[in-house]
């Protein structure tokens, strides 16, 4: 067996790192890419089905209502600065501020999820009425699961930071905030597709 | 990979397989076997009053009520034999009475429906004796009961590749059959 020649000692390296230096953020980024690509495929299917039919939405289907969805989108977009603020605070490892940010983020997440559940009614069609109804409900439902998972993750990390605070969880808070920003930003194009698609394309 | 674990994993898989044998009736594809016909000639007993000694009418156990393939064949036959022409595309009813509701004029048991199809009924229901083979009639019976959701959820037919006029069978809620006003109560021994 070979002898080993020690050339360096790594025990002094940091243990808590952020962003692309942190292993866990690579995992979150990976799943963001996967979910983003799946949403993109749903959007492509929407356009494909639109190109496939003459009347879109099908004859007799009412155009989707705009009020509720716009409110939901507004709340989501307004929650972006909050997420950014929480991320900055967690990168500075300010426990108190991070906790406040997390509690607010959890509340916002629950509100957004509630608004989303209300949004299904504003589609004015059922999932089994036609291909238009099916793809509209699927895009809304798929993104709703993303919001649900993210809400659950935010509440979980909030509880951990209150009951079991450790420095290694700060990067997780930052990742969670980034994941929320991804969920919101991925909804903006889909919002226009689902609610203005029937009007424009 | 300790061989011990491999054998343990295999026994688990086999146990799961044997446990799940309940599912196989749903997927039965019986082509050749002609099921015992509820003898089309004997009249299905509609009421307890009849002359002579009490005759026990054998209510045939419906062969296809847990067989998804037969119900789907019934769905195909329903359209091809133009039952939809009188009873509506999914049993909604037009000239003929609706089949998806809870009211049954000639009894909702499989044997009753079988004899209704084979012998025909007054006011326009034609007799299919000799026109359809017995297992085709049993498939139609299965589909007719499926319209009012009498079967288990995992056996029922789903939508067809046609216009979705009314909610398809999967999403209907179960109708508890009750005799319609002018039909004799179907007594079963």
């Amino acid at each position, binding site marked *: 067996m070979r002898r080993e020649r020690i050339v360096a000692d790594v025990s002094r390296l940091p243990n808590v790192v952020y962003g692309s230096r942190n292993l866990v953020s690579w995992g979150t980024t990976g799943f963001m890419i996967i979910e983003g690509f799946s949403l993109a495929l749903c959007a492509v299917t929407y356009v494909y089905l639109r190109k496939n039919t003459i009347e879109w939405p099908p004859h007799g289907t009412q155009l989707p209502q705009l009020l509720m969805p716009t409110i939901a989108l507004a709340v989501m977009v307004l929650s972006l600065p909050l997420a950014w603020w929480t991320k900055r605070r967690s990168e500075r490892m300010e426990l108190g501020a991070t906790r406040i940010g997390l509690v607010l983020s959890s509340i916002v997440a629950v509100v957004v999820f509630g608004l989303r559940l209300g949004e299904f009614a504003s589609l004015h069609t059922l999932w089994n009425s036609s291909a238009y109804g099916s793809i509209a409900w699927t895009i809304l439902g798929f993104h709703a699961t993303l919001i649900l998972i993210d809400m659950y993750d935010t509440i979980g990390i909030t509880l951990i930071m209150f009951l079991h605070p450790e420095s290694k969880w700060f990067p997780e808070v930052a990742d969670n905030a980034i994941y929320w920003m991804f969920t919101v930003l991925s909804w903006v194009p889909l919002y226009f597709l689902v609610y203005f698609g029937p009007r424009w394309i | 990979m300790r061989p011990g674990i491999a054998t343990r994993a295999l026994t688990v898989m086999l146990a799961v397989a044997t446990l799940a044998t309940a599912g196989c009736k749903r997927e039965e*594809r019986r*082509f*050749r076997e002609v099921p015992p016909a509820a003898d089309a000639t004997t009249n299905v007993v509609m009421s307890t009053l009849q002359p002579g000694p009490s005759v026990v009418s054998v209510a045939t156990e419906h062969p296809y009520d847990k067989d998804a393939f037969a119900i789907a064949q019934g769905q*195909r036959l329903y359209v*091809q*034999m133009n039952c939809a022409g009188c009873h509506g595309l999914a049993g909604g009813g037009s000239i003929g009475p609706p089949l998806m509701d809870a009211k049954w004029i000639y009894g909702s048991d499989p044997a009753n429906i079988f004899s209704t199809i084979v012998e025909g009924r007054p006011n326009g229901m034609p007799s299919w004796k*000799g*026109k359809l*083979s017995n297992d085709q009639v049993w498939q139609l019976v299965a589909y007719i009961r499926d319209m009012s959701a009498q079967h288990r959820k995992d056996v029922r037919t789903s939508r067809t*590749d046609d216009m979705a006029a009314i909610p398809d069978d999967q999403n209907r809620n179960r109708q508890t059959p009750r005799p319609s006003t002018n039909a004799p109560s179907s007594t079963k021994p």
Partner: protein
Amino acid sequence: MILQAPRYTQQSMVDPAGPKAAMVDHFWHFLIITASIVTAVVFITLLIALFKRRRPVEPQEPAVHRSLTRWVSASAAMTLVIIVVFLVLDFRLGRAIATVPAQTPLRVNVIGHQWWWEFQYPDTVPSNWISTANELHIPVGRPVLLNMSSPDVIHSFWVPNLSGKKDLIPGHATETWIEADSAGVYRGQCAEFCGLQHAKMALLVIADPPAKFNQWLTASRAPADEPGDSTAKAGKQVFLTAGCSVCHAIAGTNAGATVGPNLTHFGSRLSIAAASLPNNRGNLGGWVLDPQRIKPGAMMPPNGLEPDQLNAIIAYLEGLK
């Protein structure tokens, strides 16, 4: 018993009987020759590399490395050249095959059902429409334009001796053209998996000289002629009462259902059961009594006919020339 398939030219794309198949056949010869040469060169180089004498040269030497780089880049470039040649030939062939020749084609509607083919010969005069099954009569030397559609699942129309295949997809009307250069009977089969009896969903293309084809066309337009002898008459009665008329149609009688194939000129067909049995009394009897034994899963139910009814029906059907 082993079921004899009806007589026809051996199915093969390398034995073309039509212009389209001939063009592809030439292209196939180019392909097989180039592929064999390239494969041979690669194998010979590999075998030499394995079994040649070893010179004690150090493989990492820059000279060796440079010569290997040259060889590998040369072979990569050679592959690219071959592929470009292949693409050019392929695009030219593709365009040639896709364009329907100038001569006005005969139009036929092809409808793929679950496990049999329906061919309709449309005509401006509605009463001249012909619907036949599993056997496509076409005139030799004249292109035939097929408008294809499917009411149930995806099928694929393919007669190797005449042309490439085209899918019949529900919701899409597809068009392809075929042409036969020489008279004969060519067999084809559904090429897209379509369910239980996909294996026996075959068809025959009967290419006749134009005169014979027109004679067949006018004969097919006539309704079924009345049965001659008494058994055939009894057979007609059985046909109308025993449930055959619930699915099948015979022009000239009041059996008009379009669920199953049209049997108006059944007697003059070469094959039965989607070209999987030659059309003779024995096969017809076996098929009518119990189709599930021959094609398990087919839509036709077993018919409990008495022997005399069966003979009558066979006499009637065989008489429908």
